[in-house]
């Protein structure tokens, strides 16, 4: 069911590469402003599913819409309305903080006035005013990560896709990072996040767990723990992942 309140909608979404079914008829929907955790072991098909939703890959069959746009025909509009942050660090180390912000805002076609105003606001928010003209290379990893997230939502997208955004970051910074995610969600941005950290799964409003290309569980973390009769998301994940026949990549 697509309502005005639906940010992402997928129905029997499938992607095959030859004989291999990477994503096997997954169905789910994400509400606006929701923090949606998209879990699964390596090779379960998370990345492929995410690529289809981002307009990078055309589905083999099924239906899906992102921000109200169709993933088959309206990939351009989808791209305009989403933000994306990958597991690989995505800022340019040899550019300054300001230049990075300006570049990413620029490829989304934002006006100079908008960029100027919002950059000032952002730098204040991140306490990076003194560092604006320093090369990103010289910043500590935690700050880089926070800056990367801020850049991903700089153009005020409806939905932001985070692909293992906290890989290799210390627990304190991860905590701060999740505070930023909450803040973004409060401002109405829908968060679609993949992670390997099960404590982070607990922070999500709802969680889906992919096994062998299918979504085997989808609920709030609390409800999932009840259903599987365990005390942590870790155990939920292990119970499901153990059934997997595919090996990780």
């Amino acid at each position, binding site marked *: 069911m697509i309502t005005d309140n639906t940010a992402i909608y997928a129905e029997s979404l499938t992607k095959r590469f030859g004989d291999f079914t990477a994503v096997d008829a997954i169905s789910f929907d994400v509400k606006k402003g929701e923090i949606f955790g998209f879990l699964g072991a390596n090779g379960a098909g998370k990345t492929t599913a995410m690529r289809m939703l981002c307009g990078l*890959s055309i589905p083999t069959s099924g239906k899906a819409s992102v921000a109200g746009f169709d993933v088959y025909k309206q990939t351009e509009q989808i791209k305009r309305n989403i933000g994306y942050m990958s597991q690989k660090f995505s800022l*340019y180390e040899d*550019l300054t903080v300001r*230049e990075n912000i300006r*570049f*990413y805002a620029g*490829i989304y076609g*934002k*006006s100079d006035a908008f960029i100027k105003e919002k950059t000032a606001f952002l730098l204040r928010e991140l306490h990076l005013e003194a560092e604006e003209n320093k090369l990103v290379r010289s910043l500590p990893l935690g700050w880089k990560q926070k800056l990367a997230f801020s850049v991903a939502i700089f153009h005020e997208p409806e939905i932001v896709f985070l692909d293992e955004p906290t890989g290799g970051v210390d627990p304190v910074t991860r905590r701060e990072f999740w505070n930023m995610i909450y803040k973004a969600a409060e401002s109405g941005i829908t968060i679609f996040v993949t992670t390997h950290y099960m404590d982070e799964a607990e922070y999500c409003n709802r969680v889906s767990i992919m096994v062998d290309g299918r979504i085997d569980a989808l609920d709030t973390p609390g409800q999932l723990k009840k259903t599987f009769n365990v005390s942590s998301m870790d155990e939920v994940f292990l119970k499901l992942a153990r059934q997997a026949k595919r090996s990780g990549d």
Partner: protein
Amino acid sequence: MKQFTSFVRKEFHHILRDKRTLFILLGMPIMQILIFGFALTNEVKNSQIAIFDQSNDLSTQALSSELDASRYFDIVQYIHSYNEIEAAFKKGDIKMAVVFPANFANDLDHFNTAQVQLIADASDPNVANTLTNYATAIILDYQDRITNNRRLPYTINTEMRMLYNPQLKGAYSFVPGVMAMVLMLVCTLMTAITIVREKELGTMEIMLVSPMQPFKIVAAKAVPYLLLSIVNITSILLLSVFVLDVPINGSLLLLIFESILFTLTCLAFGLLISTRTDSQQTAMFIALTGMFLPTIMLSGFMFPIENMPLPLRIISNVVPAKWFYYIVKEVMIKGLGITSVWKETLILFGMLLLLLGLSIRNFKIRLA
């Protein structure tokens, strides 16, 4: 448009911030022109020779001083036995020895024929050949003068004119070669590396998720290198004209047009490499072996293509630099117009389209 300018600005930041690479990119053509112009030259000048004069008469002395006076030779040694010749060659003191037999003047006067022996160090065959040719020419010249008043029954005089490059300057052939090499390096290598670097960093993914169209990404990547190439073309041409005295005989506009065409071909090739590789090392390796080596070896710039075995001659046709080298020589040195190089221009243009087509197709496959 805003997207495009933001991207180009970012590319300039990358290039300008990497001072070392920038210095190499801009300094390389200047260095190459100067090195080829003044150090590496296959012209023969002031070669050191020895004279073994067993006759020691007026005509041998006259001939020796003729040789010494020419700009090709310097007599550094007078030798008195055959053994010394070998010794001098072995020590590397001389490139050629001239031997006059004991009765040179006598033979010349009474039998109207005399012999002189030229012994050259053929461990470098090209130089040995050139030296003996020059020496023969000087000796024939001398002969002409002494026979002036006595009419020989039959003579055929060869008169040579070296067209387009009367002084046989090496610069006339290496300036076009260096242009091809530098443009190759800047465009193919740098575009391939710069795009693959974005893949390695993971920033390419971010770009593909953004509303920026892939062809705009690629075009924005190419713009700075196109500009850099134009700077390089300019500096090479300025140095050629003002430092090496190589004239631009044809139309400057045509020359620049052809250079830009070649630059675009190189950019397209770099792009093709970048769509097929995922690491900077691989990209560099392919660019160097796939483009740089053939440019040096099969463009006709270092080694004449006409003398190569048939398979290599056929392969040389797919090397864009071969056509560019030919065009530049025709336009710059011979002063010919588009009517003489339109075929080669079309070939380059075809290569450009083919390479662009292939890379766009690869780019799309990657996305699907």
